[in-house]
């Protein structure tokens, strides 16, 4: 949500209820389209008003209470308890495993690779990943001992090529079903943040 494609905007008034005051402002300031419907302007001014804000805060709370009643928060808390061990971010604070490796990969490279992989790390995580990746890459170094001149690479253990089938019509899932897991969708489309400036 947030910075959304124009066509969907007039329909998405309730999203501002979810947001803090500042986010609402920044959202609004990004909307440089001058044809805001009247009710949207009203909504915006309404949000600026402290009393109204309390009201909207109350609405959010009421919503949360409702959710809690349906037991979802309880479930989430239980789940939180069960998250443990290496999955947990707390492990990231543990001391690095192997400090004195030859440093094949630097912090800067880790940052670059993270961007390629669409990931981001805080400083501590980056430090730990750099150390761990280095110790793993050190282990990989043993491959250099193997003579592979004139050895063809294997990309598939059981080689097959040109697997054909009849180009025939088969049942497929409906548009609605194929969108059913989308975190954000509207009128038959996946909704994403604005892509073109």
């Amino acid at each position, binding site marked *: 949500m947030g*910075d959304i494609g124009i066509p969907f905007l007039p329909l998405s008034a309730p999203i501002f209820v979810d947001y803090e005051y500042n986010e609402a402002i920044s959202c609004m300031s990004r909307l440089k389209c001058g044809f805001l419907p009247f009710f949207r302007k009203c909504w915006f001014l309404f949000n600026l008003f402290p009393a109204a804000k309390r009201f909207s805060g109350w609405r959010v709370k009421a919503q949360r209470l409702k959710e809690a009643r349906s037991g979802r928060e309880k479930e989430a808390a239980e789940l939180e308890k*069960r998250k*443990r061990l290496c999955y947990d971010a707390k492990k990231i604070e543990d001391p690095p495993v192997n400090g004195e490796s030859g440093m094949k990969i630097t912090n800067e490279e880790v940052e670059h690779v993270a961007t390629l992989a*669409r*990931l981001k790390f805080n400083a501590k995580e980056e430090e730990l990943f750099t150390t761990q990746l280095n110790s793993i890459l050190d282990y990989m170094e043993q491959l250099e001992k*193997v003579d592979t001149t004139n050895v063809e690479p294997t990309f598939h253990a059981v080689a*097959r090529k040109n697997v054909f089938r009849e180009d025939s019509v088969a049942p497929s*899932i409906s548009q609605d079903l194929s969108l059913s897991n989308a975190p954000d969708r509207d009128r038959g489309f996946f909704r994403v943040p*604005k*892509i073109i400036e």
Partner: protein
Amino acid sequence: MELCQLTAYQLHEMLMRKEVTSREVTGSVLKRIAQVEDRVHAYITRTPDLAMEQAALADSRLQKGNAGPLTGIPLAIKDLICTRGVRTTCGSHILENFIPTYDATVIEKLKDAGAVLVGKANMDEFAMGSSTENSFFGPTRNPWDLERIPGGSSGGSAAAVAADECIASLGSDTGGSIRQPASCCGVVGIKPTYGRVSRYGLVAFASSLDQIGPLSKDVRDAALLLQAICGRDNRDSTSADVPGPDFTKALIDNIRGMVLGIPRECFREGLDPEVEAAIREAIRTLEKLGAKTVEVSLPHSEYALAVYYIIAPAEASSNLARYDGVKYGFRAKGNFDLMEMYKETRSPGFGAEVKRRIMLGTYALSAGYYEAYYRKAAQVRTLVRQDFEKTFNQCDVLLTPTSPTPAFKLGEKVDDPLQMYLSDIFTIPCNLAGLPGLSLPCGFNKQGLPIGLQILADHFQEEKLLRAAYAYEQNSEYHLRKPAL
């Protein structure tokens, strides 16, 4: 003896004789789950209502007399195999609420066979791990010792079978993820030949290595389950066009004349002495039964681990690029531009090990490193494969330990990824070469932890695996022991 403790084959005979109904069997399994699941945590999602519905359907099929060997048998499914309408998480936060809109081919086949699905088994996130500690939903515990890991990544599938929380289960094996947990939990597990079982609907980790396979209480059940799920599938172009033989025909208690290869590289430093003793004892047992043994060599197997940890993360980094917060799965809430949205979604969406492997894979494939890492690894993979080709000229099957040690303690290897990776040292070469492999119980150590024997065969020679394993099992009783839970 409770119904849940029996094997699929035993239950099938009872169901056919109308001594029990599938509803009774399923009820017994569900009761067992209610008793021990708090301690074992083998499941991410349980489907008791669905199970009872399917059991009722199975009963009507049994009444009508069109039942197969798996009709009415309660099974657990590893949570990375898509089940229509039933949450499939891959043990990950990013797919926490993902509900597949279709069934994997293996699930279609099991449903056609009339099997009953009792739940989705816990696993290391995206099958990356050897202990099931990398699950977003918390670790599974080993039914033989609750302070220990059940192995991984199919730890939930193996623990559920060992704890009688299902009759048999499906797992997936990319570098040992069926065989190593089978070994840790004292059950039978088969990683079929690459291409034997369709991967359609299996959430991809490393596409050139992944295979779905069965975990069960004995060799016969593993054969029955493999029979039910194998075969060519148009929706997976890598599934092989080979006829599925009748695997139960291989279940004969006779291995006279079979040649067993013993790779000398297996008995090396780092192998637990009790594991070594158990394997040597198993080899002696098979020799007494009339098999010949021959020492063979797999000189490049020592490089297999390094090869694997380049190739598998490289493929994973590409496969896991699809989790972008758009089409399905978790998306971070906030006012982000597209790039930020990807990063804010993926960073908390994946756990540490998955991110480590995505990073490793992305690095290995990135400009300037591709030749040094990925291509080099693919070349050494050829040499690993050729080693096996040579040995299978000398012998029918290979025998090795499944894992260098019995199950280790929870948390023991969490901080040292490389140590964790070493648990798969005996299972990985088989995946690189696309071979079939089987693990079955061959002993217990002094602390009462199971030890697994691994049997490997040449491509599409699962019958040889089954024959050797069945003959051994008929002359041992390790598979009959049950953990005290």
